[in-house]
Structure formats: C-alpha cells, structure tokens
C-alpha cells in the first residue's frame, strides 16, 4: 500500500511540473463552461422554459456537466496507446506493481488535481452567473455520488480499452478523434440528450456514453422515476461488467504479444 501512496505523491508532483500546460488545460475547460453557460443564459433571457427545462434546471445541468466532465471524462490516460506502442510501459512491467493499479493511481492524482481547480473555476462562474442551483434530497444525492463513481470506473475501463490499440498499431489518433467527437455530444456536454429527437436518443442509449455524465445529471435534477433509476443502475453495472471483461481479455492478449526492442 505504501508504494502506491508514494506513486500517488510522485504522480501528483509530476502533474504540477508543467504549470503553464496545467493552466492552459484548466483555462480551456473554463472557457468551454463559460460558453455553454452564456448560450443557455441567452436562450432563457426571452423564455421561461425551453426543451422541457426551466432556467434553473438548465444552469444546474451545465454546472454539473462541467463538474462531471473534469471528474469522470477527463483522463490522464489519454496518451496510453502511444505509451504502449513506444515501449514506455516496459519500465513499469519490470517493477513489482500492478499495471492497472498504477494507472488507477495516476487517474486518482489527476482527479484530485481537477477537483481543486474545479472548485475555484466553479466559484468564479458562480460569481459571474449567480445561478440558482437545484439540489436533490439526500437519498438521491448519495445515489448520484454512487452513479458518478460508476461513471468514473466505466470511463477508466473505456480509456484502457482504447489505449490497448497501442499494442498493435501506432495509428491511434483517428479512432481517438472519433471517440472524442462522439463522446463530446453523447455524454451531453453542450446540451442535454433529451432535447434530441427520440430516434437519436434511442441510438445514443445503445452506447455506454450517456452513463458517463448524462444519466447522473438527470438523477440529480430529479428527472427520473424509480423505474428509470432501477433500469439505469442495471445498465451502468452491465456496461462496467461487459467492458471490464472485454478490456481485461484484450490486455492479457496484448501483453502476451507485447515486445519492446532496445528500450
């Protein structure tokens, strides 16, 4: 356990070395939230409700999506495929640590860092927009936290799955770009998915992406009945189980075929 805590400390320190990169990354996240909040504030200037959302619900939605974006979707493992293909992980394979454990530690350090900055950014946005945030009751809030944790695990698994491409090909930027494009919209970053035509919603719900933040926010906003809550809980667990199993198998296969020469 001590070695993992040490790894956490080292990863945390590493992430603060390139402060300008860190600043620009957070600024980008801030600008994205600022744009969304401005767009929706403008839409609600002349309308009391739109797309079935009140102004308060929509602004709460945008705040939450920014929060979950940083806590669930943002990942320090996005460059994993190139780390695999370049042979960088040979270094870790030789050490007495679990590879997935190491990745999890790197993710935790990244999330802690995001959380700290997120509070500052949210405070700033809060002062600008002075929104009325709609809070759920305690029971729903606890379930929201559990679902968010589930979303975090699901994203971790999906990132590992995409990263495993690096075992076999250096050409990962194409799939990665496509993945991020799909994720940007299907996780409900710019707008809630339930404003889309029903047909499109049904297609999106066939993927795990709405479980990376959209359903969590729907729960927070009290827009799900008990039947929906049960259904989404089962589906979230299902995706974690299925993708977790597939990822595990692919990584085992990848590690068997992994070779690094002259590292």
């Amino acid at each position, binding site marked *: 356990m001590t070695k993992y805590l040490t790894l956490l400390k080292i990863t945390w320190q590493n992430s603060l070395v390139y402060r300008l*990169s860190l600043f620009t990354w957070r600024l*980008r996240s801030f600008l994205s939230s600022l*744009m969304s909040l*401005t767009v929706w504030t403008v839409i609600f200037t002349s309308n009391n409700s739109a797309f079935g959302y009140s102004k308060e619900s929509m602004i709460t939605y945008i705040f939450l999506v920014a929060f979950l974006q940083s806590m669930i979707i943002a990942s320090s493992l996005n460059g994993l495929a190139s780390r695999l293909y370049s042979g960088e992980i040979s270094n870790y394979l030789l050490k007495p640590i679990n590879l997935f454990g190491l990745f999890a530690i790197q993710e935790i350090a990244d999330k802690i860092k995001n959380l700290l900055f997120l509070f500052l950014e949210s405070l700033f946005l809060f002062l600008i927009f002075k929104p009325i945030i709609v809070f759920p009751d305690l029971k729903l809030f606890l379930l929201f936290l559990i679902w968010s944790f589930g979303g975090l695990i699901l994203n971790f698994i999906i990132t590992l799955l995409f990263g495993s491409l690096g075992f076999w090909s250096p*050409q990962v930027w*194409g799939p990665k770009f496509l993945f*991020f*494009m799909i994720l940007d919209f299907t996780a409900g970053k*710019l*707008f809630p998915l339930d404003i889309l035509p029903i047909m499109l919603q049904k297609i999106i719900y066939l993927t795990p992406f709405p479980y990376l933040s959209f359903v969590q926010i729907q729960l927070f906003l009290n827009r799900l009945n008990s039947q929906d809550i049960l259904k989404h809980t089962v589906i979230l667990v299902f995706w974690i189980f299925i993708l977790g199993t597939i990822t595990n198998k692919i990584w085992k296969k990848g590690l068997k075929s992994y070779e690094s020469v002259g590292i």
Partner: protein
Amino acid sequence: MRLKTYFNVWKIFGFNAIQENLVNRGSNILFMIGKVLRFSFSLIFLFLIKNTVSSFAGYTSAQMIVFFLTYQFIDLISQIFYRGTYVFSNEVRLGSFDAYLTKPINPLFRALTGKPDINDAIFMIPSLAVSFYIFNNLDISVTWLSLVWYLILVTNGLLIITAINILILSIGILTTETEGIIWIYRDLSSMGRFPIGMYMQPLRFVLFFIIPIGMMITIPTEVLLGVKPSFSIFVTILVGVGSLIASLKFWNWALKKYSGVGS
C-alpha cells in the same frame, strides 16, 4: 514569377500531405467520420434551438445559423492552409527549422503552409454544399451589396487568422512550446460560432480586439444579414490589416532571437 515558384512549392507540400494521408488511410477515414459527426451534431443543436426559440441575443434563430456557417467556413480554411502551426514548435525543438532557414524560400511561408490538412480540404466540399443548401432555405434576405461586403470582410478575417498563426509561430521560436496557446486559440475561436455580442465584458472586448474572433466572424455575418455591425467596417479592416503588419514585425523580431540547435 516569384508567386508561381511559391505556388509550385505549395503544390509539393500538398502532394506530400496527400501521400501521407494515403499511408494512414484507416485513421484518416475515422478522422473524417469524426468531423462529419461534429458538424452534424452542431447543426442538429442549432436547428433544435431554431425550432424552439424565436430570437437569440437580438438575432432571429435563422440568422444565428449563418454565424455558425461563417465560423465553419473560416475555421476550415484556416485548418486547410495553416496546419503547420500545430507542429512548428516541435520542429524548432528538433532543429528541423534550421533547415528551413537555409532554403531559398521564405521560412515563414514554409512554417505556415508546410503541412496542408488534406482531410479538411476534402471535408470542405460536403461542408460547403450543406452550408449553401441550408443558407438557401433559411428565412433571411441578402442583397448583392451585402454579399460583396461579406466576401471582403471574410477575406479580412483570413488576414486576421494569418496574423494569429504568425503570432503563434513567433511564440514557438521564442519559447519552443505553443501547444497550449494553439488550443486556447481554437477554443476562443469556437466561441465565434455564436455572435460575440452575447458574451459579457471584458470577454467581449478580448474577442473583438485582442484575439479578434469577432472581427473575423461576427462582423462579416452581421454585414451579410443587413444588421448594424458591432463595429464599423473601417475599424474591422483596420484591425485585419494592422494585425497582419504587427504579426509580421513580431515574426521578424522573433527570428532574430532564434538560435539553432545545430541539428
């Protein structure tokens, strides 16, 4: 005569880029699908707003779509011609820029246009076709005079984009690190999908005069739509020409500070 030489050199850059694309066919196809999805989702979102909200920041919802189409066009042009900016700082670090300086063509031309984006060039065709189709079916009236002014101001917008890219290249020479700046510029420019007037001060001032996205996208669109522009055409052209002259002076100054790595 000199212009013809540069055109021939640029054709070689383009030919090389096509060859590179053909080598990585799979990734490029996925990249293209990603671009189509992003464009489609953005349009779906805008049409949903158009069908639900009658006015947006003082514009009709049909007019708002024209802002997005202008952004899409200007952004694509920038991506097609100035993709070299994205990799330039790396070339300074590796010492490849030393080689540019020894060639009998302007190093700025090589740095700026040396890596045309073929994917975006291909995507430009369907994107323009869809844009024209949408534009023709929108409930807006355009006069020939406003169309001529629009084209002049879009050209002025391209001068501003060129100036910003030259500025980034110059920073690349001075600091060898521009990735963060490029992405912040991309995020700021994406704010131009909507009329800049909707953002609050001081961001609005920044988007009109510091990173003049508003002069690039908002003013030409306002003129096309026959709306009173946020700033006069004279000021817009002054910013366009002025920023280009200033950026060229900055480039020449930065170039004097360059020290090759002797590779």
